[in-house]
């Protein structure tokens, strides 16, 4: 089922049209084809430097990212349900945030139940494995159970297990077990086939990917060293038609392009790019943290692809799904408004709507904002609960944590400054305090 709500489907359709228009006009402006077969000499050269594409310095100055998260936020802010009448009377249930669509989101009691394993009485990695806690209390036993889960290759048990966090040594295998990635010979062959597609054809989106990596991951203290891996994954991803399958349950539709001169003729329509996914600014950050877990390109590729078609696609498409970005934004705003009304009101008054700051965190699933070890603990829980709602809860918890400082700022810029650096945050204590230790 793609998307039950008509107005959501319509909004997604318009958004897609805009993106494609932007891509096509870039194409025309720069006179670069969407796709081009490489001459043999170029193919040879690319094959030779497949492991060091980062050393290439193509001229990317004319390329612009097709869109950035803040463009997407503008679209979401303008979403309206035509069947819903807000009325002229402001009521106590009026939502003061940026998202103005009435989707059902969980409240704190429901979240406490949903995220039960994060409670104060349950051991967690990210809290109960700190240096001061003797490992006999939790860590050793948790590790032993993890090893057992892996030995028995029990995917369902693994999903339950990682709710309490993965031991670093077991994380790669546990995630692969949950995502059903076994890296069989046919998977490796499939990856090699994608690689040869990259060698043979150049796509315009490759330049967008290049630019994105250079702008984001290459400049990141944690991820710059994986630059070459990112190209190896993302170039292949763009050409992977198996990614099209996720459009059956996504609200999105892959963009279509037509063979030159055959505009409008369906038999000459192709999906562009072949995967149907046009990267936006920051897209490569979905891949970067995975490089700490997997160094074998085909396995890294499959893990990323599965993470994308299960989770990440929901962060940049318009839908009513509880893990969709619209619901996450609404969940964030509702949590903040309900439990930190003073803070919310204050920020709103000074022109610093909280979602304007937290949106980019959620769209990127916090990649590039948190320290990597913390990010991986967060993504453990995404996998464990098969939901992205934790991103909204964490975003609210961050605001709660820095509430005192935020109450003193008087501008959006100052609020941004207070929240600019999340690299020292410990996610599990923050989540626990917000959900279980705050008087509601």
């Amino acid at each position, binding site marked *: 089922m793609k998307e039950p709500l008509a107005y959501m489907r319509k909004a997604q359709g318009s958004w897609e049209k805009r993106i494609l228009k932007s891509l096509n006009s870039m194409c025309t402006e720069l006179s670069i084809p969407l796709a081009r077969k490489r001459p043999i000499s170029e193919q040879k050269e690319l094959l030779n430097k497949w492991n060091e594409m980062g050393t290439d310095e193509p001229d990317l100055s004319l390329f612009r990212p097709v869109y950035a998260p803040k463009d997407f936020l503008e679209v979401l802010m303008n979403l309206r349900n035509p069947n819903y009448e807000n009325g002229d009377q402001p009521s106590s249930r009026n939502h003061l945030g940026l998202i103005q669509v009435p989707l059902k989101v969980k409240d704190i009691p429901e979240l406490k139940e949903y995220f039960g394993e994060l409670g104060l009485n349950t051991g967690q990695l990210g809290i109960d494995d700190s240096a001061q806690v003797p490992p006999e209390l939790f860590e050793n036993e948790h590790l032993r159970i993890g090893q057992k889960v892996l030995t028995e290759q029990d995917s369902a048990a693994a999903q339950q297990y990682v709710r309490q966090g993965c031991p*670093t040594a077991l994380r790669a295998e546990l995630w692969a077990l949950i995502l059903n990635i076994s890296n069989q010979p046919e998977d490796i062959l499939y990856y090699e086939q994608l690689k040869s597609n990259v060698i043979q054809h150049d796509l315009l989106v490759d330049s967008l990917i290049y630019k994105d990596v250079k702008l984001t991951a290459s400049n990141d203290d944690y991820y710059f*060293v994986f*630059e070459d891996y990112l190209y190896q994954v993302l170039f292949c991803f763009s050409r992977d038609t198996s990614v099209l399958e996720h459009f059956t349950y996504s609200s999105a539709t892959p963009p279509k392009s037509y063979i030159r001169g055959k505009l409008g003729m369906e038999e000459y329509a192709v999906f562009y790019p072949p995967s149907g996914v046009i990267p936006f600014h920051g897209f490569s950050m979905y891949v970067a943290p995975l490089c*700490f877990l997997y*160094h074998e390109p085909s396995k890294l590729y499959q893990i990323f692809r599965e993470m994308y078609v299960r989770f990440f696609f929901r962060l940049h498409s318009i839908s009513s799904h509880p893990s969709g970005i619209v619901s996450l934004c609404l969940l964030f705003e509702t949590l903040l408004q309900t439990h930190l009304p003073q803070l919310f009101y204050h920020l709103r008054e000074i022109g610093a709507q909280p979602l304007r700051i937290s949106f980019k965190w959620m769209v990127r699933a916090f990649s590039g904002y948190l320290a*990597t070890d913390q990010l991986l603990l967060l993504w453990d829980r995404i996998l464990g609960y098969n939901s992205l709602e934790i991103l909204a809860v964490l975003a609210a918890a961050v605001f709660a944590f820095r509430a005192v400082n935020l109450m003193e700022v008087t501008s959006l810029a100052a609020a941004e400054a207070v929240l600019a650096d999340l690299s020292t945050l410990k996610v599990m204590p923050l989540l626990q305090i917000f959900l279980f230790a705050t008087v509601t």
Partner: protein
Amino acid sequence: MAGKVKWVTDIEKSVLINNFEKRGWIQAAENEDWNFYWMSIQTIRNVFSVETGYRLSDDQIVNHFPNHYELTRKDLMVKNIKRYRKELEKEGSPLAEKDENGKYIYLDFVPVTFMLPADYNLFVEEFRKNPSSTWIMKPCGKAQGKGIFLINKLSQIKKWSRDSKTSSFVSQSSSKEAYVISLYINNPLLIGGKKFDLRLYVLVSTYRPLRCYMYKLGFCRFCTVKYTPSTSELDNMFVHLTNVAIQKHGPVMNNDKHCFECYGYDIIIDDKLKPWLIEVNASPSLTSSTANDRILKYNLINDTLNIAVPNGEIPDCKWNKSPPKEALGSYEVLYDEEMAQSDGPDRDLRSRSGQSIGIKGNRARDSGKPVLTTWK
């Protein structure tokens, strides 16, 4: 006597000069009265050489020790480490413990190295134990990584076999053909598929008593896929005769109250997470490639100057070289011989072993696990 410190340098680097200027020091010329001279290796050689050397006065400080090359020349470094190991072994120190294969458990931190042509036969013996291994040849007489190459067959270094059979004294002219050959670490730890090495900094303010500090910050240098030879400076000096018989010598490093030195340690970690000391630089590069790099080096020099020239005032070499804790900046005490000796029963062990080195707190860009190797 209040006055501004007069500084000279023959290394035109902004991280140095900015640090001098921010202290309000005054630039001077080499032939004028100066208090502080940050010298290149060539210059320090002149200062302490028999022919061209001159005495330093009590208000003059330089940034090298007279015989730093004992640590920083590749062959001498290895020689001194070997000597140190043998000494420890002789006195039955637990540090010198060996495993069942005869390898040092704690002291095996330098790749096996030989001097050529002098140790050619010893090298061949070692080579034959592992004929599939790769070795790296570094010339003693060339600078900046020129002439470095890898070998994996004895035939590739036939010429040194000939040379070793001739006179056992190496003449001045053939010192240019002298090489060190080390076991090549062909299983380095890779991050992102890339080889890297660690650069750590150690400051020595005095050798007698030994007082040294390790900088808490360092960095990794990542290589592109192609092998790039080290660009360290190899001193152009006469190679000394190898003395196989180990005798008890005096301390290796000559102390001089006018001197301090900041060394750059190059370390490679292999895929078993074992660190290897590759070389020690007396004149670590002060060039910066990125903003973070520049900040790190600027702060390094700043903290170094705070320790070497306390309070930024005109130095007096008679001071006890004991800076207060607050002046250390990002340095932490690595070893303080005076303090160690005042600790009673452990005295013998510590004053002999010299260093307890922990590699921690560096900005190694791995998954966040510090690699700790200590020996006491």
